[in-house]
C-alpha cells in the first residue's frame, strides 16, 4: 500500500480539492487503479444479471421445444437461415472492430478509435436493417403474436400443405404452440435488438465525444465498458442463431 494513498486528506465536504488527482478520478476512489478495477467488476456483475435475464428466456425456449418438438421444427421453417447467417457474420465482425476500438482507446489513438467505432456502428445498423426486413416479412405473414396471428404450416418441402392453406384451423400445428415459438422469437430477438440499440447509442455518444476531444474520453475505460457490453450482445446472438434458425429434423 502506497503511503501517499494514506496521507491523502480530504476536506470534509470538499470534492474539489484533489488537485493532484487524475481529473477522471471520482471522489470516492483512492486512486485510478481502484477506480479501473471497480468499473470492470461493476460491468461484469452487470453482465451477470444480463445473462440471468436472457437465461430465463432460454429456459422457456428449451421447455417449449421439449414439449412441442413438432411445432418448433415446423415453425422455424418460417425463418430464413441466410438472414440469420448474414447477421451472425455482421455481429461477429462488429465484435472484432469493437475489440480493435478498445485497443485504440488503450493506446489513446483518436483516429483509430473513430474509424473502428464507425465500422462497429455501421455493422449494428446493418444488423438492425436485416432484422427489420425479417420482422416485416413476419408481419405480412401474420406471424406477429397477438390478435392477428395466423399460422400456416409449411411442409418439409416448403409451402403450406394443401389442407392447411385453405383452413389454417385444420393446421396440424396448433396455433397456440406456433404462437409460443414466435413469441419467444420476437421476445428474445427483440430484447437482443433493444440491446443493440442501446449499444448504438452508447457508441455514438462516445464517437461524438472522442471526435470533439471531450476530456472525459481521455479515460479509456468508457470505450472498454462499451466494448464489454457489445461483446455480450454478440454472445447472446451466438446462441440465438442456432436455436431459432437452425433446428434440424423432420
Amino acid at each position, binding site marked *: 500500500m502506497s503511503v501517499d494513498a494514506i496521507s491523502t486528506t480530504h476536506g470534509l465536504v470538499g470534492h474539489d480539492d484533489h488537485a493532484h488527482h487524475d481529473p477522471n478520478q471520482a471522489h470516492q476512489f483512492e486512486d485510478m487503479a481502484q477506480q479501473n478495477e471497480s468499473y470492470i467488476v461493476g460491468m461484469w456483475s452487470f453482465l451477470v444479471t444480463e445473462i440471468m435475464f436472457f437465461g430465463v428466456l432460454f429456459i422457456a425456449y428449451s*421447455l417449449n421445444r421439449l*414439449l*412441442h418438438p*413438432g*411445432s418448433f421444427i*415446423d415453425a422455424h421453417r418460417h425463418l430464413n437461415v441466410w438472414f440469420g447467417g448474414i447477421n451472425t457474420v455482421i455481429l461477429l465482425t462488429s465484435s472484432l472492430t469493437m475489440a480493435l476500438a478498445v485497443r485504440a482507446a488503450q493506446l489513446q489513438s483518436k483516429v483509430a478509435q473513430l474509424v473502428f467505432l464507425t465500422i462497429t456502428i455501421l455493422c449494428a445498423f446493418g444488423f438492425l436493417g436485416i432484422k427489420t426486413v425479417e420482422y416485416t416479412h413476419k408481419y405480412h405473414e401474420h406471424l406477429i403474436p397477438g390478435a392477428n396471428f395466423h399460422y400456416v404450416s409449411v411442409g418439409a418441402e416448403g409451402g403450406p400443405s394443401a389442407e392447411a392453406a385453405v383452413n389454417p384451423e385444420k393446421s*396440424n400445428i*396448433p396455433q397456440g404452440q406456433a404462437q409460443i415459438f414466435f413469441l419467444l422469437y420476437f421476445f428474445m430477438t427483440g430484447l437482443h435488438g433493444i440491446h443493440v440499440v442501446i449499444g448504438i447509442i452508447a457508441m455514438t455518444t462516445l464517437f461524438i465525444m472522442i471526435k470533439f476531444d471531450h476530456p472525459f474520453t481521455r479515460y479509456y475505460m468508457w470505450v472498454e465498458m462499451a466494448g464489454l457490453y457489445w461483446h455480450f450482445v454478440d454472445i447472446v446472438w451466438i446462441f440465438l442463431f442456432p436455436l431459432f434458425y437452425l433446428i434440424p429434423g423432420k
Partner: protein
Amino acid sequence: MIKNLPLMPDQASSFAAQSDLIYWALTLLTVAFTLIVFAALAFLAIRYRRGSKADRSRPLHGSHLLELGWTFPPLVLGLLMFVWSAKLFSTMYGRAPEGSEQIYVIGKQWMWHLQHMNGIRENNELHIPVGKPVKLTMISQDVIHSFFIPAFRIKRDVVPGVYTSIWFEPTRAGKYHLFCAEYCGTQHSEMGGWIYVEEPAEYQKWLASGGRRTADTQPLATTMEAKGLQLYEQQGCGNCHDADGLSRGPSLAGLFGTTVKLKNGATAVADEAYIRKSILEPNDQIADKYQQRMPSYKGQITEEQILDLMAYIRSIGPRPSASTTATPVSSATSGTRVHTATAGKPNPNLTASNAAPSRGN
C-alpha cells in the same frame, strides 16, 4: 369457544398415522433444539450479565471441536428425517395399489367435479367406502387448484393441462373436510366440500341408488365408457381409427397401457397423459409408421369429454373387464405430460417396467 381448541385433525386414512408420526418426531426435534437454544441463551445471559462476578478468565473465541460437535447432529438428524419422510412420500405420490377404486376429479372455479367409473357424478362431495384404496386422477379446467383432505393428510395440486394423481385408503367412516388449498381466485375459500367415508354395505346402498342421496346428481348415469363411445362416433374418430375405417390412423383397440413406438425413435407408454396429448396435440408424438394427419381437438372437446373418451379407449383394451377397476399400469403418478416420448431417447426404466405387449402396428 374453549372447547373448540382441537389439537389434531382426525386420522382417517392409512397415511394419517404415519404422517403424524413424522410430524411429532419433527416436533420433538424442534422442541429439543428450541429448548437448548433458549435455555443456553437465558442461562448465559444471566450468568454473564454485566457486573456479575462470574469467572471470565480464558474466554473462548472458537473451537473446531465444538463446531464439529454442533454441525453433525443437525446434519445427521436432518438426513434421517429426510429418508423417513421421502419414503412415505414416495408411497403417497407413487403408484396406487392394484384394485384401487378409480375416480376422476375435475377442478374448476370454484367447484369440484368428481366422477366415478360407473358414471355417478358428484359435485363437491365424494362418497367412498372404508378400507378400499382410492385412486384419484385429477385435472383442472382453468387455474391451478389443490385437492386437500386434512383428515387423510393428503393433498395434491390439480393443474390444467396435466393429469396429477394421488391415492389413499380411508380407514375410518365419517364426514371429512375437502378443501381447495391452492389460491384460485375470488371464491377460493369456498371451494370445498365433504368426503363421506362409508361402511362398505352402506356404500353399496349408495351406489345402488345411483348416488342419489345428493340432490344435484343426475338420475342414474350412463357409464363413462358409454358416453365415450357416443363421443367417439360423434367426433368421427372411427373414420380413421376403426379397423374397417380408412385405416389412416392406428387402431385404438388394446392401446391403453401398452408401449408405443414413435416416429422419432422414442417410445412412450400409452397412459392417460399420452392419450390426452394424442387427442389435443397430436403433432408432438406421432405413432410410428403413420403420417401426422390427425387434427388437433384442442378447444373442441372438454376435459370431461376427454376423460370419457379415455374410459372408452380403455374399455376396448384387451381386458374389457378392466373397465370398472383401475387399470394397473398407469404411471400417471405425476404430471407425465412431458414424458420420454419427446425427450428424444427411450427410457429403459419405463420400457422395462412394462411387461405389457409392445405394439408396433
